[in-house]
């Protein structure tokens, strides 16, 4: 373990915070689905990767800028998510937590295999001017793309919050999340709400995927890694608590980066997971989760 310099520490803090934004974005969809459908969506990682591949296709074949491409990708992923939930998961609702869980698990296995068939096992990355550029703030250099991701995290969280709080559909979603039976009783078509939510989750995953593709790189098997980080964020944030997800994401980013500054990047993920397990052991419902 090495004691880092003040500057290094400051850098670690800032980068960590911004990186946390990326974590949040990759976790948001998971959180939404977890909160409303009470479902651990094990295929989330593959949805992220799929988003990245779609953007890659747009970029290489139509040279559409990845962020611009989101305008196409988000709706597309939404439309992919809808039937996925309706056809495969709806029949399993109310059959305990395991059945849908394992179904999504099976889906992720299939998806990974198909990615390899479709895109080969090669490493891909999305490049754009801002992907590798740096941003200097007070002598601290941080990746621009991290800053962009951070922005996305704030905007998406706020937007989702408003959507849930201000719109009629959002109201239906919150109602279904709390008491599906009662909601149905008041004329809410809960199964529609569910597939809608799942579609949203998929769309968010895609956004995360594009950012990941820009910031790092991706292969057909990149998904599970982000799934796990996503879990950590969602659970720390507390079941279905939107702001909790944001805060937890940022927290995780900072903890990992600062930890890495001390013990080296090798232990980055370990530190993250360890922190996750410890916090969970102390607060079984996550940092911001209220008891059910």
């Amino acid at each position, binding site marked *: 373990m090495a004691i880092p310099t003040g500057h290094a520490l400051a850098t670690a803090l800032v980068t960590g915070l911004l990186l946390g934004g990326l974590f949040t974005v990759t976790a948001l969809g998971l959180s939404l689905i977890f909160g409303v459908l009470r479902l651990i969506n094990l295929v989330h990682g593959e949805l992220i990767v799929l988003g990245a591949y779609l953007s890659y296709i747009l970029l290489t074949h139509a040279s559409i800028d990845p962020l611009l491409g989101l305008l196409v990708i988000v709706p597309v992923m939404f439309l992919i998510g809808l039937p996925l939930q309706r056809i495969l998961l709806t029949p399993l609702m109310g059959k305990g937590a395991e059945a849908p869980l394992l179904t999504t698990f099976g889906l992720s296995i299939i998806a990974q295999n198909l990615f390899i068939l479709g895109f080969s096992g090669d490493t891909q990355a999305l490049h754009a001017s801002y992907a590798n550029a740096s941003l200097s703030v007070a002598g601290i250099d941080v990746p621009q793309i991290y800053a962009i991701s951070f922005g996305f995290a704030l905007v998406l969280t706020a937007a989702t919050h408003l959507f849930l709080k201000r719109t009629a559909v959002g109201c239906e979603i919150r109602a279904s999340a709390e008491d599906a039976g009662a909601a149905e009783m008041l004329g809410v078509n809960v199964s529609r709400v569910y597939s809608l939510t799942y579609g949203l989750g998929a769309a968010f995953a895609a956004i995360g995927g594009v950012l990941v593709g820009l910031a790092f790189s991706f292969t057909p098997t990149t998904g599970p890694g982000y799934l796990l980080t996503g879990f950590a964020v969602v659970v720390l944030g507390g079941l279905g608590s939107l702001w909790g997800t944001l805060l937890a994401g940022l927290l995780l980013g900072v903890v990992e980066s600062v930890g890495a500054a001390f013990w080296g*990047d090798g232990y980055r993920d370990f530190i993250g997971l360890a922190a996750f397990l410890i916090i969970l052991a102390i607060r079984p419902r996550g940092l911001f989760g209220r008891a059910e």
Partner: protein
Amino acid sequence: MRKSHAIVASVFLLALALVAGGWTSARSETKEIEIGASIPLSGPLAGFGSFVKWGYQAAVKDANAKGGIMVGGTKMKVKLTLLDDKTDPNTVASNTDRLITKDKVSALLGSCTPSLVNAGAVVADRARIPLVTGCDPLEAFKSVKKWEYAWDIFFWEPDLASAPFKTLKAWGAATNKKVAIMHDNGPDGMVVGGKLWPAFAKQYGYTVVYKASFPVQATQFGSMIQNAKAKGAEIVLVDAVTPQAVAFVKQMFAANFHPKVLVIEKGAEPVQFAQALGKQADGIIVGGYWDASFPFPGAAQLRTRYEKETGQTYSQHIADSYAAAQVLLDAIAKAGSLDAAKINDAISKTNKTYVVGPVKFDANHTSRLPIVELQWQGGETKIVWPRKQATGKLLLKIG
């Protein structure tokens, strides 16, 4: 419960019988030379797998095109069985078991990367079935055990590790001689980055100002890059697989760190690396053991053939896999028999120049491939060392 025991007892018995019957009957009695390999067709290393697969198949095709191989007076076609090991060493082992016991292969070809190759080689060595492989750096291969039936054709880590310094020396490159070393802690990474680079740096009069290691799944290198930058290193030596290599470079530039020399072993070699980074790949150096421009028989043709058949850009892994398969097939031909011991003996006597260069095994069952230093220039690699082979000049600028 007890009743269900009874039921299951019978079912289990039935199933096993079926299993046994089903498989023992599956033995092939045809007049073919059975060889096989377990390679990563899914999982993180599927990228390598696709090249290795092509290399092995190409060599077998060639042999069969010539009507097969003379064994015991009759020409026999070669049958190659490939199994997917999901990039999981446990699966490599059980696949190898399967190839040996079910497909009754006379010889085996290796997987890719030390952890996978070694897992299979151990099984083959134990079963006394010859296995020829590439894609496993010699030290990593030797360190496992004293091999009897496993053979490795690849580069020798010290060659790779010393190449950057030799290159700089050869071009008289002017740097502040401050070196930062960052390597993954995979078997080969530990050897090249962990042991050899520091040693050679010393030997060639460089000072290592920073050294760090990271796991193979890591995606963020921020703090390492910051340190290297802070220590004012002009020469950065990295050993990482492609996904990390790409992420590493992005983060390096994003952190505004532009050293004079950037060497990324392993990861910077395949063309996808350059595709993923575009112009920013320019100037990045990587050690290579093969390039289509090598003065060896069939080198250029192999490249064009690969790119014609697959429509993708080649990687050096097509060469060592192709050569490994050729070495094996030649040995079988020389042995003129399918007897494992005879084939193994023939392999040991291999002494011929293949598409990767001269192959001759030493006491450790390893044959060393010459290393060249490649530099990405305008989307393709140029040989910058040894100078007599050079196809381009060394650039001291990254991105």
